[in-house]
């Protein structure tokens, strides 16, 4: 797994057109690192036959 660095955070934020204050950078980096670990079991799933939960309802009822 790629190590998340402050530089990576800055690049990602730039791509998202988001200015992250200097004092937040380390905490955002840490949160991203924790997240990557937590998300590993989800990434490992074979979801080939699983539909997304987001269903578009085309009816004009609402």
């Amino acid at each position, binding site marked *: 797994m790629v190590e998340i660095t402050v530089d990576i955070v800055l690049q990602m934020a730039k791509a998202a057109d988001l200015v992250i204050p200097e004092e937040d950078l380390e*905490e955002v980096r840490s949160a991203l690192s*924790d997240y990557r670990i*937590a998300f590993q079991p989800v990434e490992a799933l074979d979801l080939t036959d699983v539909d997304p939960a987001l269903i578009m309802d085309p009816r004009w009822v609402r």
Partner: protein
Amino acid sequence: MGTVSEVDAVNELTELTIREAGDLIAAGKVSSVELTSAILSQIDRTEAAVFAYASVMGEQAMEGARRADREIAARGGWRSPLHGIPVGIKDIIYATGAPTEAGSDVLKGFIPEWDATVVRRLKEAGAIIVGKTHTIEFAYGQSIPPTRNAWNTAHAPGGSSSGSGSAVAVRSAYGAIGTDGGGSIRNPAGFQGIVGLKPTCGRVSRYGVIPMSASLDHVGPMARTAEDCALMMNVIAGYDSCDQQSIDVPVPDYTADLDHGVDGLRLGLDRDYFYDAVNPEYLSRVEAAIAELENLGVTFVEVHIKELELVHGIFLNVIATDTSAYHRRLLRAKPEGYYPRTRVMLEFGELLFGTDYLIAQRARHVLRTAVKDTFTKHRLDGLIAPSAMNTAVAMSGEVSADLFAQPIRQSLANIVGLPAMSVPCGFANAGLPTGFEVYGRPFDETTVLRIGAAYQKVTEWHRASPAQARQAEASARQATAS
């Protein structure tokens, strides 16, 4: 502060449950004005210590109480067991006549011009809105509301429905409405020795609730007993076309089965997931509750749901992405308005990939299927777990820097939409409340409430009050000193 007899009279009234107070009102033995005055007095007496309320709507509440008394006195004017009963509303829910600030400077001074559906339904049932209760910033952030734990003000109240939990526990509301995106009703309920129910996804409208995550947010009741939560559910549950997630299924009478007992019910225990690393003293209280329920006829089944390992990753992704999407414009317009740690969480959510979000949503299906299959295979009516890993932590003024390191186990119920309820089951670690949590089948709040009611029928934990605890503590100190 009034005279001793006045204080005793207030105590007598505020100790009532919603059911008891409602019965007295219906029988003409007490008025809404008396109940509302007692609650406002209790707010005056306790707010300096617990800070449950972001705003108190004293005049409006008294006006509503007088109107309720006139209506109830008129033939056929009694509307529901909540008619004339003062309740609190989490300050993330729109209610006219008071600011809705969601615990954030970003919304400072915002006063909604309309009521959320849940508030409208409470008002239609005759409930008295007594005030807006404190929340952690936008029910999401890491801000520390001024609210304190009713049982020990040096300890955290739990969140994010912090004020609702403290108000009910300290008897400055008979019931309160909370919201729960990942345990935010059940966590403060567990920490403060009250009952908190997160209903099934789609059961209670979220229209007029400032959103965190469209697919994780729920609105639900917090009260001292399961019966009181059932009474509140009878008022707030039901389809609302204004809420895209609302589901149109019939609403039962949630009180109908409360006296049916629990003999023959089957509850699953996943010890690998829910019971791992729980504080031993806390766990002993939960085990005692399980033994009590076993005596009442519940069969417990050991289960292992491997897919629960997905909960943490799915929850982090969905809640962070959804919440950051909602705050995207505000974060750029008023970044300084957010508490710093909330801002960090919002910034983090903006950096997650869309593909991850879709994967997480698909993984929810896998998790839901695994839970459903376990219920089916073992013929379960529910799962039972500790409400928390420990009693409420001491307030240190700082929160953990590892924002996302610890799994929020309770978020299972949000991810798969199941009803879940925390029930008080005693005290541990020097007098702090403990609780157990029951997860039910979708739209089967009736069974979840029935389990809570059966347990509360044979236990007295819900009758214990913080005031009594403080008196006992003072007496013990005095005895030691002498």
